[in-house]
């Protein structure tokens, strides 16, 4: 089973901007509704393969892509 992580952003525009950059780098991503356990924001977050999380975190940092937080996405949240 693929384990996923999720990146939260403050705005829809930031999610889409980050998604484009991650896709360009070849990462598999998917836009999902923002998980309620992490945020009260409306809208969407960026889901990714947790195996990529270190590479993605360093890429976001290097390219100064603004984001709110990165979380491990438990398949069976309480």
């Amino acid at each position, binding site marked *: 089973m693929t384990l996923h992580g999720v990146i939260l952003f403050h705005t*829809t*525009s930031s999610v889409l901007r980050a998604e484009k950059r991650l896709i360009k780098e070849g990462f598999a991503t998917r836009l999902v509704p923002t998980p309620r356990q992490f945020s009260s924001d409306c809208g969407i977050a960026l889901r990714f393969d947790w195996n990529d999380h270190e590479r993605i975190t360093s890429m976001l940092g290097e390219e100064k892509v603004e984001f709110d937080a990165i979380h491990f996405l438990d398949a069976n949240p309480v």
Partner: protein
Amino acid sequence: MIYLDQAATSWPKPPEVLKAMTDVLENAGGNPGRSGHRLSIAAARIIYDTREEISRFFGVSDPLRVIFTGNATHAINLALKGILKPGDHVITSSMEHNAVMRPLRNLEKRGIRLSIVQCASNGTLDAKDIGRMVASDTRLVVMAHASNVVGTLLPVAEVAAIVHQAGALLLVDVAQTAGIIPMDMTAMGIDLLAFTGHKELQGPPGIGGLVIADHIDIAQIDPLICGGTGSRSESEEQPDDLPDKFESGTANLAGIAGLGAGLRWLKDRGIEEICAHLKTLSRMLIDGLSAFPEVKIYGTLDPARSIAVVSFTVAGRHVSEIGFRLDEEYGVLSRVGLHCAPAAHKTIGSFPEGTVRLAPGVFTTTEDIRLAIRAIGRVIRS
């Protein structure tokens, strides 16, 4: 019919623009940024992609610095009312549209000091005259890129150098020039750029925007409208994030999709070619009208120093009669009167009667201009 009122709004629109608008409502009809389902995401993507195209079009690197508004007037109000505080000094030109003049007069009543630089009777502005008016409290200079009455281009880059030396900001209204003159905000020194979608950008009415240069600190701009953004929904305070800080309420999705299609259409067509075509038409109009001794043409009469907007009056005749007869008898559509720019008409000496304005566009042909001039000749001789 010969439509020569492109400076008011462009018509017809490219079929691609209409198709993009119906497509988005049929296939991507969710509320962007509010929900997480596929229709909402599809809508958000169209808006983001258009933001990106606009940022490239005007030469800013961050697409989030493109703020969508209803039109250029809304964008100008956002910039002026968001930045200017009581005690600030603002400078503008005497060729401005009421989209600039009215918010400035409104701000004047709230303690902002306004100076208006007098332009020459052909609409030209000497950048040094701006320099003479700059003071220590000058916060902003606002000006059109080109006059909507006579088409005269104002020296934006020269003014930018003076404005920046004084530590002030430059806001430019490109309603008349975007889409017909290649534009790079960074090269021109524009800090804030207000555009509208429905003129030569080929989009529909109801969509425009403010583009904020990459180096401008947005903390100095207050939002004009506050409300729901889909972001930071736990808070009752307006968020500081771009573009949400300035974009409350549901976006004009169909308008944005149409504008995006307009920009792509322009790119395919080539702005340089459009610019050259309009110069040819402008030259034909000026030369054709000059042949009538009773006609007075306003502006520089030089297509190199103006866009294709030609204003004229006829000795002893009302402009309203000329415009009405051109429409009724020859199907030539012009715009007569003051063109929402009383200051500009005072500057060129045509206030309060106004002028007949002819503004060809990308779809206007040389044959259209030839027929229009013949029609004008017949109207003024009978």
